[in-house]
């Protein structure tokens, strides 16, 4: 049985990744968007090194949240429009796995590129080399939680404006924002940041089952 779930997971992953790679915009746009938002801060605030490096954790995280919200709408919309989603739900495969796979794909095509770009952002915002590891660690946990939340937002606002899913998701992403920036700030001040990471991990651990189940419920709503 576990083997068959795994088989299904790989089918969805292969299918969606193939589509994503053949349409390069899906993974490039969040990346470019992230870099543009990061660039805007020095332009707006001036290029002083001390100012920028003290604001950098917040800048990186705000850019991350906005960029990962950008692609949220596409998580389910195409499959819903062309009827693939109906078939997924009608099959005997667990729909929980479907949502999980979709979240994973969203993370692979937005979270991962953003993590790569965050190092560039850290360099141009004059963050010390020591903070790169905490930035990456906090982004791994934070962007995956954002993908989970984003999937719920996308399911609730399926077929409606993208701004609606942003309004739904953003208030709920505040703990991620606060914890994520705290990790980076503490590491710059050479304080212990591990506690914040653990909280982010705990949020992710509770979020995966809870949010995936609620997303299934929210998706089924669209058929009523």
């Amino acid at each position: 049985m576990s083997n068959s779930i795994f088989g299904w997971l790989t089918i969805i992953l292969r299918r969606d990744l193939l589509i994503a790679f053949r349409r390069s915009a899906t993974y490039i746009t969040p990346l470019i968007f992230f870099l543009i938002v990061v660039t805007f801060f020095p332009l707006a605030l001036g290029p002083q090194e001390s100012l920028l490096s003290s604001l950098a954790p917040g800048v990186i995280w705000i850019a991350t949240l906005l960029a990962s919200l950008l692609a949220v709408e596409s998580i389910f919309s195409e499959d819903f429009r062309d009827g693939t989603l109906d078939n997924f739900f009608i099959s005997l495969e667990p729909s929980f796995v479907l949502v999980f796979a979709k979240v994973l794909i969203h993370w692979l095509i937005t979270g991962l590129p953003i993590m790569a770009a965050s190092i560039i952002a850290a360099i141009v915002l004059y963050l010390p080399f020591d903070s790169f590891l905490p930035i990456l660690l906090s982004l791994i946990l934070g962007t995956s939680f954002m993908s989970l939340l984003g999937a719920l937002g996308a399911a609730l606002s399926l077929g409606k404006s993208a701004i609606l899913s942003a309004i739904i998701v953003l208030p709920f992403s505040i703990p991620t924002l606060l914890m994520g920036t705290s990790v980076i700030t503490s590491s710059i001040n050479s304080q212990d940041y591990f506690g914040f990471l653990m909280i982010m991990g705990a949020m992710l651990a509770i979020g995966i089952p809870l949010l995936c189940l609620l997303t299934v419920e929210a998706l089924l709503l669209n058929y009523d």
Partner: protein
Amino acid sequence: MTRIWKILKQWFIEMGSPPLFYNWSSKIIPWLGITTLVLLSLGIYWGLFVSPIDYKQGDVYRILYIHVPSAILGESIFIFMAICGFINVIWRAKISGMMLKAAAPIGMSFTLLVLVTGSVWGKPTWGTWWVWDARLTSTLILFFIYAALIGLHSTIEDKTKADRAVSILSIVGVAIIPVIKKSVDWWQTLHQPSTFTITSSPSMSPEMYLPLLICLLGFYMFFAFSLTLNLRNEVLDRERSKAWVKQNFNS
């Protein structure tokens, strides 16, 4: 045990059916209204005119009799909504969905009232309308979450669908609000030593405490009162094509 459960369930189903609800709620509305009026006028009169003056803040502190109850209400209404949402998602009880819809604007208004009274209170005591204090910040976020729920409801045309969507979101909300509060606390201690603590007056005298309690009860009754009124409107609106509504309003 199962029999009690069955009887309870039956009772809930009957009480929740729209025509029956409309009937029995019309009987309790006057009582709710009267208790609200009595409790609120007693509590506010006592708080504003009778209770002793605060030796540090003077008369300004009396805004607390509005501020604190609305803060408590703003949060407990959210918990109430999440319970309604849970019932709506699991058992698809229509009335609980309507309750959720009816409670949301009330909760949002109370949260707005907390923010407004808080900044009015803050100006004379701290000299500023707003500080990024942990409690203020998490109340503001609660306000945003209310706005998200109401916004989501208004974008879905089918009312029952909208109820269920908001139910799902309110469950997420109630799970994440404690996390928000905690993380805002940590965030604040990380960024600045907290200069203001609103957990003031740890030893409140009973003359100050009692009217606050009465005000709080009055606010709860007000919530019950306005919720019932809202809910009756909602029920009528949704069932306007049903026979019982037409009968009620033609005769």
